[in-house]
């Protein structure tokens, strides 16, 4: 088909327009995401050099080390770190849900005028640097502080140990840090809650608890799943909080990776750890998607 000059001109300008709009974003993604990822994967399959820098030949050494195989045979250290990361993620996410659910509901019951202010109160702390807030918790939980003394009096910790550093302090730090990421999507879900469904459930002989379970919970599920994704994935890779609140005994996968790139000086091992995190995250997302589908709804939130 013969194209008229004006038509050809239109096609050219459209192409150019597309190029101008897409290129910057695409370049950004390629330079800062795709290339580093490829590099990271390549590094993971290299051998560790004398100064911690990767060298050829290619090998699976780093993955063997990650699995715990060293000079002295197998040790469970890294496996413990992985399990600790998973455990902390699950516990912290669960606690965040338990705390955020009533908060989100409570905010929707407030007068319309107060709601933005309440939401602001939830979000404002996260405007401060995470490290500074974590330092705050160190001061609150250190040995000799009122909270630690109280826990000691109740026999929860041994004398002079303090609540920090410990796994408990890490969990607390994670819950505190990620609370807004759960409250906001849950609030959005509560905001558009169809109360007629709740009334229908009551009308159809559902006692309050069952009415909640059958009419309220399914409606908030998309928000809940979105919140779980927003909390669990960053929590799994968290570095700052376990570093500061955990001491040496509460290391998580993020710390393991970070150590290899700094003090530990083993880039291939660090890269292998990062890939493990990535895989675990994808498995988590896939599982969430399945759960969301099974329970109905939520598919639109979970990628």
């Amino acid at each position, binding site marked *: 088909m013969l194209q008229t000059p004006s038509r050809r001109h239109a096609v050219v300008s459209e192409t150019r327009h597309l190029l101008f709009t897409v290129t910057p974003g695409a370049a950004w993604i390629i330079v800062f995401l795709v290339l580093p990822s490829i590099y990271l994967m390549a590094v993971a399959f290299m051998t560790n050099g004398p100064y911690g820098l990767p060298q050829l030949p290619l090998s699976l050494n780093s993955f063997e080390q990650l699995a715990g195989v060293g000079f002295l045979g197998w040790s469970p250290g890294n496996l413990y770190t992985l399990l600790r990361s998973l455990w902390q993620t699950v516990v912290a996410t669960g606690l965040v849900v338990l705390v955020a659910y009533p908060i989100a509901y409570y905010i929707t019951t407030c007068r319309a005028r107060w709601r933005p202010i309440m939401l602001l109160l939830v979000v404002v702390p996260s405007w401060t640097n995470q490290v500074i807030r974590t330092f705050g918790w160190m001061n609150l939980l250190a040995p000799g502080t009122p909270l630690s003394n109280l826990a000691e009096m109740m026999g929860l910790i041994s004398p002079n140990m303090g609540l920090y550093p410990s796994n408990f302090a890490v969990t607390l730090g994670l819950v505190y840090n990620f609370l807004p990421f759960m409250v906001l999507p849950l609030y959005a879900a509560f905001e558009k809650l*169809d109360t*007629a*469904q709740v*009334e*229908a*459930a*009551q*009308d*159809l*002989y*559902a*006692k309050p608890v*069952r*009415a909640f379970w*059958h*009419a309220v919970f*399914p409606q908030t599920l998309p928000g809940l799943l979105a919140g779980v994704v927003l909390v669990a994935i960053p929590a799994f890779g968290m570095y700052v909080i376990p570093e500061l609140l955990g001491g040496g005994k509460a290391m998580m996968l993020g710390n393991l990776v970070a150590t290899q790139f700094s003090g530990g000086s083993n880039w291939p091992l660090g890269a292998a750890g990062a890939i493990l995190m990535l895989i675990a995250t994808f498995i988590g997302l896939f599982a969430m998607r399945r759960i969301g589908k099974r*329970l*109905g*709804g939520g598919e639109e939130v979970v990628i």
Partner: protein
Amino acid sequence: MTDLTNTVNTADRAEVADTASRDRRGASSIRMQGLRKQFGRDAIALAGVDLDIKAGEFFTLLGPSGCGKTTLLRILAGLEEADDGQLTIGGKDVIDMPPHRRSVNTVFQSYALFPHLSVRDNLAFGLRMRGEPAAERNRKVAEVAEFIKLGPLVERRVDQLSGGQKQRIALARALVCEPDVLLLDEPLSALDAGLRGQLQVELQRLQKRLGMTFVFVTHDQDEAMVMSDRIAVLDSGIIQQVGTPREVYEHPANAFVARFMGHDNLFAITASEDNWVDTGLGRLQLDPAEQRDAPDGWLLIRPETLELGGNIPADYNRLEGTVEERLYRGSRIEYRLTVNDHPLTAVAGNLGQRMHDVGDRVTIGLCPEDLVRVAA
């Protein structure tokens, strides 16, 4: 003749209702006394409602939006708490009973189906919550799904269905529980006119067959008249009139009810003596039964009772008017007239007679028996 049929019909219905209430557990009378409800500081939803609804009756709460009819329905369901007053259903005091313990089910205006559940699970919900055994539950659900002609769709999720199908599921979901009273909150308002008319008839038939007490809320007076055994007209949280559709339409208790039932021809009575009244139209003779002492209130002329031109019997009131507008509505013809500068509407059945033209002077005949005095 019509009168007689109507009486027989009502008596018949009442008898059917009585037998039903004796035979089935699925019919209860409702008694409301002094029900009050206020929202916030000055929004009075119900200002003391006394109402008796008979077992097995199709009872309609009719009124404009904000008149309190939905609040009253929600108090019956237990979804709203009355500030004051008493409520018994089937002779049992239920005022403090939570909704899940009342043998009352509601068809919600928005249907309020559970979107994450299949049609089957929606239908089974009430039975499941009540703890009926699975076998019994499945049998009843299959039965009701067949009944509403949605048998093949029971595995679908409800968000895949049309408005009419959802409406039937909402109805079936409530009916399958076999409640003593079924509450319907404008269940037909979201449907198109054709489907609505069809469902009005179906609902009424269904109610007669089941003998269940239906309390129906609507703002549509035609719908109310077609379906109901009795109607309560509400305004500003007060019951204005309770009666059969015929009583409410032909003898409205006051000007509000008359206007709400669609009457335009209301004329202020300026003076009255014996069975004569003076209105803007002139002096008119009434039936002696309509005689009142005070010259207050309004005179109601139903547009279909006017005789235009032709042979007007001698004992009729005669008026002269001008045709201002003619609206051809197919089965009937509506004339907008002026009499002594007062607008008057007349409706004539379309029997193929000669139509009056705009600008024509016509003689209007009013039968004294068709003139009704209405309180202010």
